[in-house]
């Protein structure tokens, strides 16, 4: 299995071959993503209202998958960076750079929808709930990563520095998450202001998973498109 993966990734390490593959997958991936999201939203529309939160619980179907993608995005960047730095895969840096803004935007969506979801319940636009806080810190980690890419002029050096940051940062994300969770339990206010997820009844679970899949496909479609753009940009730069 591992050997097969290795062979596949080695085969597509050649940018031209990758571009051919990407061109083939581009339309289907976007199409699938659109279909999945459309179906997901359709299912969400028919989810019964939560007895406590009313119709606003439906924001959860955007908030939770977005938060999943925020974490998935950073893991994606981590693995791409490892492929680039440790295994010297030529497309690793391209993949990491392409995925970064996509992940950052999903993180921002998670933050905004989290705030919108909670506002009717809490009466304020923000609470330092454990998950929201972790996502906020993750957002800054994304920003630092993207800023590093932008700040260093020379592309190879920028790529290597950013990959290093991604690897070092990824190892620490669990530590940050753990400490934020612990901090939240320490300062638990009297009224429960956590974003309580309703019990994962089948009515809620399936639409959630479908939306999750749709977001994943959207993430992959966006990243693939950005990778194609980046490779074309590099080709242009080399020619000039």
């Amino acid at each position, binding site marked *: 299995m591992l050997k097969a993966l290795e062979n596949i990734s080695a085969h597509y390490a050649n940018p031209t071959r990758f571009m051919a593959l990407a061109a083939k997958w581009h339309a289907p991936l976007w199409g699938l993503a659109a279909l999945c999201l459309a179906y997901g939203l359709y299912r969400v529309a028919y989810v019964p209202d939560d007895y406590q939160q009313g119709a606003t619980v439906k924001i959860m179907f955007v908030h939770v998958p977005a938060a999943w993608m925020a974490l998935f995005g950073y893991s994606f960047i981590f693995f791409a960076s490892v492929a680039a730095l440790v295994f010297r895969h030529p497309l690793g840096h391209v993949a990491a750079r392409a995925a970064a803004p996509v992940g950052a935007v999903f993180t921002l969506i998670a933050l905004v929808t989290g705030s919108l979801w909670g506002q009717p319940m809490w009466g304020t636009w923000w609470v330092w709930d454990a998950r929201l806080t972790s996502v906020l*810190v*993750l957002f*800054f*980690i994304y*920003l*630092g990563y993207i*800023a*590093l890419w932008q*700040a*260093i002029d*020379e592309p*190879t*050096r920028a790529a*290597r*520095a950013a990959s*290093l*940051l991604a690897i*070092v*940062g990824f190892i*620490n994300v669990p*530590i*940050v998450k*753990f*400490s*934020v969770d*612990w*901090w939240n339990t*320490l300062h638990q206010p009297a009224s429960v202001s956590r974003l309580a997820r309703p019990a994962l009844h089948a009515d809620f679970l399936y639409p959630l998973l479908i939306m999750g899949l749709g977001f994943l496909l959207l993430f992959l479609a966006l990243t693939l498109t950005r990778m194609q753009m980046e490779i074309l940009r590099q080709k242009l730069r080399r020619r000039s």
Partner: protein
Amino acid sequence: MSLFMTLCGAHIRLAWRGGQTVLAVSFLFIAVTLLPFGLGPELKLLRALAPGLLWVVLAISLLTTLDKLFQADFEDGTLDRLRLLPLAFEAALLAKLCGHFLALVLPLILSVPLAGLLLNIDGARLPLLLAAMVCGAPALVMWGGIGAGLAVSVRRGGLLTVLIAMPFYVPVLIFGAAASQAALATGTALWPYLGILAALSAATILLAPFAIAAALRVAQD
């Protein structure tokens, strides 16, 4: 070992002569002075918030000292020297960071009692706060070093360093502030928090030099 001490001492001397110690401590006091203007001069409020505020101000003061850490050496060729010493590059970097801690961070921590006075800090909390800071500050320095190492080739990379290092300050701040609240809040013992802080510091002291060395090598390629 003697090379380690030589490098450490050289960095301390340079930081001291460059006026960085005075600048950093002044920044700490200026930041603390701004707080009552934002929060109001009510002493009870300041007393309650003092430990947490001092932690944040310490972290930010530390962040401001970082851009001088590796940039000068990167530009004047000293980094090459450090790479070509009989001492491992990682050890040479650790020596610099030790020097940075002794020359800049320790004075900041020693200024905290006086700054705490301005915030009407509870005298009983002060020893806990200082103990927590001494245990946790090395982690802050190491993370700052990682940020400084990654941003070293960027002109005016100070803000970038801060942005990179800042998210990773969160665990230290969380446990550090908890430590200074510990004994008074629920009668819980101080030691677990100090232990966690010390563990974070120890882990970063062991691992950060390798990350920083890698970052500096990338910058010089």
